């Protein structure tokens, strides 16, 4: 099973260039989708796109021609409101044709505002309400262990999402069962829908929290592809791995970056032009 941009197929520099290209394509597609649909979560999308591009471009063993392969790696986007980023990533990796992105959020489209596994190839579970993806990922990793499979499971969590208690239930289960094949990536952009996370309900000291729950913790720059890539090396401790990826909401478009209103604000036509210019510069 190969992804067309698998790390093993390319030298490190070429891999990082491919990831970077993919991230740029995904941002541009997502901008078009949100501009056309007049809805979406552009700030959340741009925060997580470098993580998605690295995963799909260089890490996950998934085959777009066989999205149901039982031995595929499992990826779950628990922050399902970043569906636009996921759709664009899947399309650019060949799970479905890129032109289908134009149907995002249109009546009867497969591309709902939140992902649906029964309609979109490559989606593993229907997320949207927060705090759901992590327990499902724990179940995926338990299944792999019961089947003595080496496949891995990766879940991406929003940081605000960690205010949902179900995540900590799942963190305890994964730790109790020592699910070393499970990686949880926290998209730590420090903003949630209404305000900064630390003003809303404090998450810090976040790395200490995960460590105290029994996880191996890695803290990285969540837009630095090489750092993301190395953070996704297998567990060195036999414990599940938490990657705290420090990110910037709206990353890549100066007037959106780190601004709370761009959680789900829709850019005007002029802003779309300006954003496209920055992304293609």
């Amino acid at each position, binding site marked *: 099973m190969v992804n067309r941009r698998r790390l093993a197929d390319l030298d490190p520099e070429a891999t990082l260039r491919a990831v970077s290209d993919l991230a740029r394509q995904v941002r541009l597609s997502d901008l078009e989708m949100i501009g056309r649909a007049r809805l979406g979560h552009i700030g959340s999308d741009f925060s997580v796109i470098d993580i998605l591009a690295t995963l799909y471009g260089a890490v996950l063993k998934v085959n777009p021609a066989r999205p149901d392969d039982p031995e595929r790696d499992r990826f779950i986007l628990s922050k399902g409101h970043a569906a636009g980023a996921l759709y664009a990533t899947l399309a650019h990796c060949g799970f479905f044709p890129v032109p289908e992105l134009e149907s995002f959020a249109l009546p009867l489209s497969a591309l709902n505002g939140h992902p649906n596994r029964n309609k979109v190839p490559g989606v593993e579970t229907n997320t949207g309400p927060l705090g759901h993806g992590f*327990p499902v990922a724990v179940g*995926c990793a338990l299944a792999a262990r019961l089947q003595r499979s080496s496949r891995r499971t990766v879940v991406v969590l929003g940081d605000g999402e960690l205010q949902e208690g179900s995540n900590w239930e799942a963190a305890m289960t994964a730790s109790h069962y020592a699910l070393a094949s499970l990686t949880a990536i926290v998209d730590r952009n420090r903003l949630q829908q209404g305000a900064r996370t630390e003003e809303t309900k404090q998450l810090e000291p976040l790395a200490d929290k995960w460590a105290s729950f029994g996880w191996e913790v890695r803290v990285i720059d969540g837009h630095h592809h090489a750092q993301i890539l190395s953070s996704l090396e297998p567990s060195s401790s036999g414990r599940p791995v938490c990657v705290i990826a420090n990110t910037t909401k709206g990353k890549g478009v100066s007037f959106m970056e780190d601004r709370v209103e761009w959680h789900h604000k829709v850019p005007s036509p002029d802003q779309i032009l300006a954003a496209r210019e920055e992304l293609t510069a």
Partner: protein
Amino acid sequence: MTPQTILHAPTYDCRKAFAEELIALARQDERIVAVCNDSVGSSNLVRFREEFPSRLINVGIAEQDLVGVGAGLANGGMIPFVSAAAPFLTGRALEQIKADVAYSGTHVILCGQSPGMAYGELGPTHHSIEDLSWLRAVAGLPIIVPADPGETRAAVRWAASNDGPSYLRIGRHPVPAIGPEQTEFILGRSIQVRPGNSATVIAAGTMVARALEAADLLHQEGVDLRIINMSTIEPLDREAVLKAAAETGAVITVEEATTTGGLGAAVATLLVQHQPVPMRILGVPRQFAPTGSTDFLLGYFGLTAEGIADAAREVIHHARG
């Protein structure tokens, strides 16, 4: 089984039949796993754990995690029986049931143990009378309420082989064997357990045996009740309900659940639009139960042979104007 014998028949806890059938299935199919929330004992899974220690996943007291983990195991190709006390499984994890199981369409078997008022004196926090109402509102989720051990076994086998979600309501309050012994459970197909044309009682779970007793009481008065075991609440056996209403002219529903949205509401919604007949809907009214044992509470709310017989007399009188 005739009504005369059901009054004195031995009774059974359906959880035992559930656990025995699950072990039998697990011996044949290594994809079968049990997932529980510190409920190994109350779900009767001690023997399962002894025989398949690695296939008993205990997530601790964490119902949201419980259901999500079940969905993930199903994604990974396992067949999870997610088992917990019905009030906590359906109340605490309702959004996981909706999103991770029903909407995602995963092959997760949700096993609501000790439903209704089986926990008696433990009170309304531990009663599960809302589950049928809550879950009927969730698309794509079959809701199954077996009436006796044989039907419980058949439903467990069906749920393991059906590639999709389901909710099994596994009774704790002892019930007699209703029969006929089922070799195969068919989703959405009710069973007429007694013929009759004076009125129809549509019952589920613990109430089926009591409906048969009510039929026995009324038989002495020249009233012949038709009794239907409606073990699938969703999707409802529309054909049997419409036929019964047309042929008997009056319908009584009875369930160990709130009357705000379960079996009675399902039957009424169908009949009022397609075959209106006088109806009585028996169950727990929209109130929290007082303190008492299960038997006391069932009597308190009229969920007894006498209560069903009274409702039948009344609705027949009404129907005949």
